[in-house]
C-alpha cells in the first residue's frame, strides 16, 4: 500500500522532520501496515479513552502568582537572543517543495 508522495511531502512539512531516504519512507509504510491490525477489533459503541484518570476532577489551584521572574534563567539556554527576545529567522516563509529545497538552503 503506497503512501502518496503528496502525503509524504505534507507530513514532512507538518512534522518539520524529513524522511531523509527510502528507508525512512519504508519505515512509515510498515508503521501504517502494522497499525491496520487495529481494525480487527470491534469497537462498536465504545467511547475513546483520553486518560485513565477520566473519572476524576482536575485539580484547580488559586490564580495566584507563586513563581516566575526567571527571564535570565530561561534565556541562558537559547543560542540566539537579543535583550529579552529569542531571535528567530524570518517567518511566514513556507518550507519549499522538495525539488526547490536544496537551492533554498544553499542561499543560507
Amino acid at each position, binding site marked *: 500500500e503506497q503512501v502518496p508522495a503528496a502525503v509524504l511531502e505534507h507530513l514532512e512539512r507538518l512534522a518539520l522532520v524529513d524522511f531523509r531516504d527510502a528507508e525512512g519512507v519504508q519505515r512509515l509504510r510498515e508503521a501504517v501496515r502494522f497499525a491496520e491490525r487495529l481494525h480487527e*477489533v470491534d469497537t462498536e459503541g465504545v467511547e475513546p479513552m483520553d486518560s485513565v484518570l477520566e473519572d476524576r476532577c482536575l485539580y484547580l489551584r488559586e490564580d495566584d502568582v507563586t513563581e516566575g521572574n526567571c527571564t535570565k534563567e530561561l534565556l541562558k539556554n537559547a543560542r540566539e537572543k537579543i535583550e529579552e527576545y529569542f531571535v528567530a529567522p524570518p*517567518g511566514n516563509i513556507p518550507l519549499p517543495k522538495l525539488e526547490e529545497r536544496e537551492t*533554498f*538552503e544553499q542561499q543560507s
Partner: protein
Amino acid sequence: QVSAALREGRVGAGELCQRCLARVRGTGLLNAYISVAEDAALLEAEEAEKRYRRGQPLGVLDGIPVAVKDNFNTAGIETTCASNMLKGYISPYNATVVQKLLDQGAVLLGKTNLDEFAMGSGSTDGVFGPVRNPWSYSRQYKEKNPSKSHSENEDSEWVITGGSSGGSAAAISSFTCFAALGSDTGGSTRNPAAHCGVVGLKPTYGLISRHGLIPLVNSMDVPGILTRCVDDAAVVLGLLAGHDPKDSTTIQGAFKPFEIPDSIDVRKLCIGIPKEYHVPGLSSEIQALWSKATDLFKDAGAKVIEVSLPHTSYSIVCYHVLCTAEVASNMARFDGLEYGHRAAMKQSTESMYAATRREGFNDVVRGRILSGNYFLLKENYEKYFVKAQKVRRLIANDFVKVFGSGVDILLTPTTLSDAAPYVEFIKEDNRTRSAQDDILTQAANMAGLPAISVPAALSKRGLPLGLQFIGRSFQEKQLLTVAKWFEKQVKFPVIQLEDMKRHDCNVFQHQKSVS
C-alpha cells in the same frame, strides 16, 4: 541497611559517596552514566555527614547515593535524553521527583544512559552509545559462557540491559548507587530491571509527579523506581508519591507511605494468571519459571486461577498508534529557539526548525514523529487515533473486569527471555524490537496500573530472569507486599561482578565530571 549504617556512624556519608563514585569509575565500561556530578555529590555527602553527626538526618534517604535517568530535568547538571537535540542543555530547574530526593538528602551521583528520548527497549539507541549489562561481567555468566580464547572475544559477548532505563538498571545492579529513577511508558523500567536482576517498579499513573520528566506519552508516562530489593522500592515510593500542583495529572487524595510487613500471609490472596500472556516467543525457561512461581503461591495456600484479558494482543498495536501520535506532539517543542540544538540555517523559521530537527533527532525519533503525524492527519484521525483510543478502553476494561471478579494480583513474565547479546539485538530495528519486547509490559501502561518486576532466577546462560506482578490502581501496598513475599521465597543470587578494568580498553570519552 546502609541507612542504618549511616545513622549508627559505622560509615560516613562522605566515605560512602567516595566509594560509590569509585565504583562508577570502575564500571565505566558499562556506559551506564552519561554525566557524573562528582563535586556536587561530594558536597551533598558532606552536608549529610554533618547532619548525621548532629543526630539530625533528614530521613532514611539522607546521604544515600542515587542516580537519575537522563530524561529528568536536573538543575545545573546536563540533561540530554541521550540525544543531540539536548546535548549541552542545562536545565534551570529540578524535576519534582529529583527535588524530592534532594530534599531528603539523597546524594545525586549523576544521570544515567538511555535510548534516545526513552524510545527503545535495549538502551542501545542513544547518542552516547549502548549500555552494557553488568551481568555480562559476572562470574555467573562467564561460567556458563566460557570465552573461546582471549579478551578480544569476551568483549563481543556482552549482553544488553534492556530499556529504555538501562543505565539506571545497570547502575543499581553494579552497586554504584542504592536507588535510581527511570521512566516507564511501555515497560521501560520493568524490562531493564528484569534483564539486570533488580527490582523495577512502575507506579500507578497519577501517583508520582511527572513535572520535569521530559514527556514521551503524556497519558502513559510515569517515573519508575529501580532498587535492589522490594523494601527499598517501598521506601522510595513513599518519598516520591503524592499530589503535585505542578502536575495536573497527579491525583489529589493523600498518599500514605507504608512499610511492608515482615511476615506475609498469602492465603487470602487470589492470584490471576492471564492466559493471553503465554505469547509465542516466550522462552521455555520463562514458561517454566512462571509455572514454578504459580506453584509457589499455590503451595502457600493462595488461590491461583487462570484469567483472560482478551484484548492483550492488540495492546502493542494500540500503543504504537497512541505513542507515535503523542510523540509527534511532544517532540514539536524542539525547534532550536528556546533551548537545545539549533541549526545554522537562517533562511526561514521553518527551514531552521527542519534542519535543527534533522540534525538533532536520530532515525527512531524521527520515524515516530512522522508516523504519529500520519495517524493524526485529518483523513486518518478517526481511523487510527480515535480507533486506538477506543481499543485502549477495551484493554483497560479487561483489567477492570478481572480485578472486579475477585482477583487481587496478576502474575506474568516481564520479558520473553533473558538478555540478548548486543550483536544479536542490533540485527533487528528499534521498532521491531520494541514491539516484541514490550508485549508483556505494555498493557499495564495502557490501563495506568501499578506493576513491578522482581528478579526470580538465573537462566541457563547465567543471566537474570524476572517476573511481573500487576496490581489494582493505587494499591501499591498490596502489590509490593506480594512482591516482597515472592522475593523472599526465590532468594535471587547476588551478582558476582568480576573486575571490569581488564576489558576497559576504550575509556568512554563523554563520561565527564560536572561540578
